[in-house]
């Protein structure tokens, strides 16, 4: 393979493009320049294409050897930019994609020290449900992450508009409240079924591997709590027309639970899901 096409080079270029997307996004926000923000989004899209290539080639090369937690973080980064790209297409606003690129860059940063400890996926965990379990959950987590950011911005902007405090010039081009709420709606309507699929796959998987679907694993408990909150949000959005602050607050809570589940359980607790570091 040509050195320029190697996964390492692609990864480096991806990171450079995500960094460029973040910097251009910030500059475009401060300078209130639409072309600069569009350039940021374009950099993120090219970065995403390169990351797809890097992950496809690198992942393929390392699957036989197993995956490290760093590789999982990189996969999550990919799903994040995928979700950002989807929202960019759907909302016609660059902000979610630029934010996704910056978050992906951060995930790459966290993944660097955790790339070396490649651990083989135990044979017991190799099942057809595995890819679906990880894929569905990661995409829903990416959507939750973006909806969390949109929710946080919504709460800030809504508070300022209601309190008549005026808006600083640099956030004047942030998405309107309606768009921020729609990000939450998409993350709920698309993300909740995905999260449910991921959970159900996990349960089947546990049944096949451990002989029982509910094992009392900390990850299971926290994920179930997340699922319940997500279900409440899903129900109220669709059935009761929740809009604005309530879904934004609930999405923030869901994200916090997901972050605790991802960081605390995977890194600091004994769980079926901490196999990657053992």
């Amino acid at each position, binding site marked *: 393979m040509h050195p320029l096409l190697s996964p390492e080079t692609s990864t480096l270029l991806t990171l450079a493009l995500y960094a460029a997307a973040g910097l251009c996004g910030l500059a475009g926000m401060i*300078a*209130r*320049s639409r072309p600069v923000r569009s350039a940021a989004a374009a950099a993120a899209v090219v970065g995403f294409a390169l990351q797809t290539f890097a992950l496809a080639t690198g992942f393929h090369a390392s699957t036989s050897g197993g995956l490290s937690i760093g590789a999982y973080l990189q996969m999550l980064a990919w799903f994040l930019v995928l979700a950002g790209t989807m929202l960019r297409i759907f909302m016609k606003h660059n902000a979610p994609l630029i934010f996704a690129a910056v978050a992906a860059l951060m995930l790459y940063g966290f993944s660097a020290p955790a790339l070396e400890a490649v651990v083989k996926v135990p044979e017991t965990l190799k099942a057809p449900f595995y890819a679906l379990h990880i894929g569905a959950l990661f995409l829903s987590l990416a959507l939750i992450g973006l909806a969390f950011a949109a929710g946080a911005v919504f709460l800030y*902007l809504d508070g300022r*508009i*209601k309190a*008549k405090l*005026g*808006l600083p*010039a640099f956030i*004047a081009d942030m*998405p*309107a*409240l*309606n*768009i921020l709420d729609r990000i939450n709606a998409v993350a709920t309507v698309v993300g909740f079924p995905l999260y449910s699929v991921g959970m159900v796959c996990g349960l089947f998987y546990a049944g096949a591997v451990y002989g029982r679907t509910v094992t009392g694993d900390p990850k299971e408990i926290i994920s179930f709590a997340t699922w319940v909150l997500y279900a409440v949000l899903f129900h109220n959005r669709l059935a*009761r*027309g*929740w*809009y*604005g*602050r*309530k879904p934004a607050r609930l999405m923030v809570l869901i994200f916090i639970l997901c972050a605790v589940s991802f960081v605390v359980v995977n890194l600091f607790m004994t769980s079926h899901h901490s196999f990657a570091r053992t």
Partner: protein
Amino acid sequence: MDCDIVLVGLNHRTAAVDVRERFALVKHTDPDTWALPLGGAIHESLILSTCNRVELLAMGTGDVAEQMLRHWAMARGAKVEDLKPYTYSYVNDEAVRHLFSVASSLDSMILGEPQILGQLKQAYRKASACRATGVILNHLLHKAFSVAKRVRTETAVASSAVSISYAAVELAKRIFGTMQGHRAMLIGAGEMAELAATHLIKNGVDEIVVANRTLAKAEKLAEFYRGRAVPFEDLARHLASVDIVITSTGSQEPIIRARDIRSVLKARRNRPMFFIDIAVPRDVDPDVNGLDNVYLYDIDDLKEVVEENLSGRREEASKARQIVDEEVAAFAGWVGRLDVQPTIKELIHRSRLAEEEEVARTMRRLGRTDDATREALEAMAQGLMKKFLHEPLSYLKEGDRAEHSRRILAIQNIFNLDRHCASRFNAYEDREEALRRARAEAGAKASRSCPAAAGNGEGKLCSAGMDGLAGQEG
């Protein structure tokens, strides 16, 4: 003798509205009626006349400002003494700075308002079409437009709403993103409310619903907005279908209360609502703002937004003035380079003559020679001259504007050049001469229909067809 760029004018700061009306040159937009006479002291001119300012810009020699004032006063049937106390006058860099500030809307009554640039462009178009502008004003005006663009791009001087109605629409955009797919309701009537409704329509709102205690009035207004009228009694029912509500009734009590809106919100599945209450006393109970997904701005809130935006613009104006200063310096540099151009041209011309003479003399001495020898000789002569001229040309081009006159004189003395070429802008003499001839022809034509032009003695060229006037500012 040097030419100057002179700007004479009055504006909202120096003259009250009655004075501005008295000295406005709006009627003189027609080239056949009057404009600044070209020829004599004034070589190029442009007139900008809006409701907030009248400005005369000219390039010429001698007492240009006095002549401009004289013609201006005469055109309005007044004496110069009546006009002069209200006017300001700027020359060269200061005139350029003022023009750039006007184009960038830094001198406008409402800082950053966008109309003035369009008005200046219109003034320039007319002046240019009448051949009233030449090399200098053409470049100056194009520069003014690019400075205005730079100011708008690089600063936020024109970015926020500074009128109540526009501020309301901007706030609506912060909530709904786009106005497409949204409906607005106008309750009552009033100039400001109607202006806000007009802004909403311009921004693409789907429909305007009008409610008024007198249904006939509502129907009339609805017809104007191509919307629909609803009976005032059915207000609560129709509120559920609209996203933006502008109220401006004469009611002494609030007509919309929080308890009414709770049920409305339920009916519209919590989709957000924006109330713009322009009435005094207020039409919407302030408690409404406490409801989730409901935003209420009354007239004072909107005034505060406008005031905040204006202070933001004032802060940005200092950045804009820096840009203007940079561009004034750049323009001065361009003008300065024009000073040295005739001397450079003359120097090169002299060197070419000398070069040709010497080549011819040498060829005669050599007798019969082939083409290759001739070409070699010419190349050698050209090379020598190039090397020889390199230092004096660099010497002329370097230095600032003040330095140029001294350097030009030194080179002229050393090389015994024609002094006439030191006059600024003479590099463009040929072109100017052609323009003058064209103007004379236009003047002759206009004098048949323009008495002022016909009486324009002293060999001056009638400017009929040479003015540049604008429409209204603000």
